[in-house]
């Protein structure tokens, strides 16, 4: 309890902690939203790949002194295109293509970072350093959050149908390839923002764990998006608290909180029905309604 009071006192006192909190909340929302579509499209591995593949972009941006977002986006999109190209033009399946491309990009990133002579940065890039976000970082994160929310609101229909039934979307003339690469572009932006809070290695956890948690609780996409963003925010704030109080690295702290929320949902959510009692009951009920319907018909 004391540590909670201390955390809130510190929040009032220190600008760096306020910046950290604001950033953590924004990253929680955007990764929850985009992550929902990533898991529904069965693209968790792709999310992991893109988040690692931005590393050389980050390094090049440091070297040239340009905005990290630009460098990362360029490499994220190149990686996404390359993965698609290799899978489409060879016998190799997509998951293998992902493995080859992202590990190569990741390796290139390590070498470029060491050439950029910023060893301290490397640690922050890999594990996150939320207590060191600058005002310009907050601005960039806010802009990315704006883009993500606009993207999901404006293209909700298209994201839904291409995630659920891509073939159908193609038959009515939707450019499903454009939607795919737009999502990949937004994903790279989210990745770079999440870099500050959880680091490259754990970005995929922020994308997938809150979304997977929400998926266990609801049958509606709108609800899933709101829940996923909420789980992202709760994980970020709670993780930040542990990071500050116990002096843990912010990334692992946030990701562990998200994982605990998932574990609780796995055991208690109605959809998962981990307890065999409720499962049996549900099957029975379903069977009963089924028979009733058959009789009525």
């Amino acid at each position, binding site marked *: 309890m004391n540590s909670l009071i201390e955390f809130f006192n510190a929040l009032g006192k220190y600008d760096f902690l306020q910046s950290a909190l604001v950033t953590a909340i924004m990253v929680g929302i955007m990764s929850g939203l985009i992550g929902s579509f990533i898991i529904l499209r069965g693209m968790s591995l792709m999310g992991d790949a893109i988040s690692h593949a931005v590393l050389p972009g980050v390094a090049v941006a440091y070297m040239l002194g340009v905005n990290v977002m630009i460098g990362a986006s360029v490499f994220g999109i190149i990686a996404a295109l390359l993965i698609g190209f290799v899978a489409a033009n060879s016998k190799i399946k997509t998951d293998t293509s992902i493995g080859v491309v992202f590990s190569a990009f990741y390796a290139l990133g390590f070498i470029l970072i060491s050439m950029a002579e910023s060893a301290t940065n490397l640690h922050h890039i890999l594990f996150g350093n939320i207590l060191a976000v600058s005002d310009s970082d907050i601005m960039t994160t806010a802009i990315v959050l704006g883009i993500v929310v606009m993207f999901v609101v404006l293209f909700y229909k298209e994201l839904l149908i291409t995630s*659920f039934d891509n073939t159908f979307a193609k038959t009515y003339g939707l450019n499903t390839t454009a939607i795919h690469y737009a999502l990949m572009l937004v994903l790279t932006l989210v990745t770079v923002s999440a870099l500050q809070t959880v680091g490259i290695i754990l970005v995929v956890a922020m994308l997938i764990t809150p979304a997977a948690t929400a998926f266990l609780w609801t049958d509606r996409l709108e609800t899933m998006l709101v829940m996923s963003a909420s789980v992202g925010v709760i994980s970020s704030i709670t993780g930040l608290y542990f990071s500050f109080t116990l002096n843990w690295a912010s990334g692992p702290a946030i990701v562990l909180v998200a994982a605990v929320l998932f574990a609780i949902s796995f055991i208690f959510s109605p959809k998962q029905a981990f307890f065999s009692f409720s499962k049996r009951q549900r099957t029975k009920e379903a069977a009963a309604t089924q028979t009733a319907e058959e009789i009525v018909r």
Partner: protein
Amino acid sequence: MLTVKNLTVAYADTPVFADVAVHFNAGKITGIIGPNGAGKSTLIKAILGLIKVQSGAVDFSGKTLKEVQQAIAYVEQRKDLDLTFPINVLDLVLTGTYGRLGLLKSPGKKERQAAYDALEQVGLEAFTKRQISQLSGGQLQRVFVARAIVQQADIMILDEPFVGIDMKSEQEIMTILNQWRDAGKTLIVVHHDLNKVSNYFDELVVMNHGIIAEGPVEEVYTARNIERAFSADLSNVLFATKEGASA
């Protein structure tokens, strides 16, 4: 009306069929039959522009696919779908309005009403809030037919619509297909159950890596054509009783 001209499709250099020409009439239900791997689904996907074709063209009453795309409804094989997706019955039917709404517009009251009416037509108005995995196979297939209804299409293409569904659902779907036929729409149905061919279809296309025969069912559904597309054994089983009776 829909005409396929000199269509050649190949997967990785193995041709599925070459130089296929076939015609589908408006106001008719046309069945496509043939053994597994005959290229039935491939033909449909080529018509819909879902796969690359090596050569040939599809003519939609003088128009191209791009011009009529909104007017085609496709009911695909259910096995390709993720049934755990967080979507309920009404929202699934609503996706049938996405094509004509275009980008940036959301379905409103009018679209919701249309979706509800379509569900009423297939007898599923009580299931609007159900998540799709909580439906039987037949109910789910009727939901997809309801989506085709809200698409208000002129051409309906159904791939194996009767696989793994109950009689009741099959009957309801057939009723809708007959209504569409009477409204002058072009209906194409890929089918596997040879027993019901004469009951269900007006015209028939028999395929096996190419067109074996096409035309009115009574002319095309013959022992000879079935033997050429499938096997002599199957042909004997299906037509033995008929010929026995006439002899």
